[in-house]
């Protein structure tokens, strides 16, 4: 039964995605809504992503430096390329995505779920609005436009965090770190980062949209939908993370 339910849900999710792609009734309204979403997600999540990025980069550098010191035969400038690669490959896109799953995932599910149970979505339907396209499309598109920028910010700040941590802890100098940053640069790591920073927000927003848009019942179900959105999108992110690494590295 569980499997059947899951399959049915998956089918509904796919058909939801299909129906988002439709000719907008009014392009300007859709664009305005997309801009609003970009602003909400971008501004709303900038600080948390920036702070977390900075500290994750720092802690990565500190922990690995300690390890390297015990080995003794690896030059400390290597930390530059090490921190850079960790941030680009894994930490920035994945940790940002998990943070965003908690923040925008629950936001979107709650907003849409509230609109559903207070009949606001029905009201739009009755006006003749294509509610799936209008309510879900701009959220997904907005996140695709803004999240990669947030991920880049996290990458850069994380790499900077590594430099600061090295100076503060006396592990290596900025010059050494900079030398490491320029060493052995792998373009496909950047490509991977970009792939992740489009796949993850797509999963997060579309799953949250699905959970919120199809809520039935009252505030109890609304709360559950919001938590479900976070749980399912986080799981989707870590699975997709593995799949992407497998396919593209």
């Amino acid at each position, binding site marked *: 039964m569980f499997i059947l339910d899951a399959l049915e849900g998956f089918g509904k999710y796919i058909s939801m995605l299909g*129906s988002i792609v439709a000719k907008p*009734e*009014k392009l300007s*309204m859709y664009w305005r809504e997309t801009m609003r979403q970009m602003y909400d997600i971008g501004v709303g999540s900038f600080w948390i992503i920036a702070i977390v990025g900075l500290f994750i980069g720092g802690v990565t550098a500190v922990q690995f430096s300690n390890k390297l010191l015990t080995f003794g035969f690896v030059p400390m400038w290597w930390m530059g390329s090490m921190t850079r690669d960790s941030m680009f490959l894994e930490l920035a896109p994945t940790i940002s995505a998990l943070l965003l799953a908690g923040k925008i995932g629950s936001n979107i599910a709650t907003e849409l779920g*509230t*609109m559903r149970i*207070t*009949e*606001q979505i*029905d*009201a739009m*339907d*009755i*006006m*003749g*609005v*294509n509610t799936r396209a209008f309510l879900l499309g701009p959220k997904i598109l907005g996140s695709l436009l803004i999240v990669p920028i947030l991920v880049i910010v996290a990458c850069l700040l994380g790499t900077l965090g590594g430099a600061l941590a090295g100076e503060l802890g006396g592990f290596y100098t900025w010059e050494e770190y900079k030398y490491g940053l320029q060493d052995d640069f792998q373009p496909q790591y950047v490509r991977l980062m970009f792939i992740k920073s489009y796949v993850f927000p797509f999963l997060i927003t579309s799953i949250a949209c699905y959970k919120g848009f199809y809520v039935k019942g009252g505030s109890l179900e609304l709360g559950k939908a919001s938590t479900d959105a976070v749980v399912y999108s986080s799981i989707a992110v870590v699975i997709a993370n593995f799949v992407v690494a497998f396919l593209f590295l």
Partner: protein
Amino acid sequence: MIVTQDIRKSFGEQQILKGINTSFHPGQCNMIIGKSGSGKTVFMNCIVGLVIPEEGSILLNDRNIVPMNQKEKSVLRKEMGMLFQKNALFDSMTVEENVRFPLDMFTNMTMSEKSERVNFCLQRVNLPSANHKFPSELSGGMMKRVALARAMVLNPKYLFCDEPNSGLDPQTALVIDELIQEITREYQITTVINTHDMNSVIGIGDKIIYLYEGEKNWEGSNKEILHTENEKLNDFIFASEFLKEIRKLNNRTI
């Protein structure tokens, strides 16, 4: 004009609508009455296409909405306005933006034309100075008015009201009823209203249908309803002892 033919709808085992035939005419307030749970909302949702009946057809000026896909419905729905039981105002938008939303979405009017139309509608429902308030800052009666203004902003041919008076005091309820009636007459709208409020039934019910256990048990006008011999309908109308007493007195004097 709306014609429904043999509408049947079940949820699981439970048959809610058991074959309803009726018709609603333009310029009239058509009331659907019945006990809570008798299927009024389900019936109305069938007419607007939010619920799809298993059997039967629903003709809006000869166009059957039952087999239509989403796109075809969208076209038809530009002629509909609806007042929901819970108001369904967009809570992220101000009063003005709520009323303007259908214009923004479906017309190419300029901003000043839209503002003019919005202000006209808000004045029409006697709510001239609330443009920049949010729905959460309004009283129940004011929200109903905003919802009504939004429902009429695109000049609908059909207006659907699901319990427009629920949660309102008798005086405010009367004002809303009169508004709905005026608009219906003025613009020759085919108006369908779900209600349990006998005051509005008597006040504005040009045509009344009584749903009982999923069937249409009675149909008539507000002139006829007080003198009906129909047992079940009388039980519904004169539910309280007080009203039963009045009825006895009334019958004696006739």
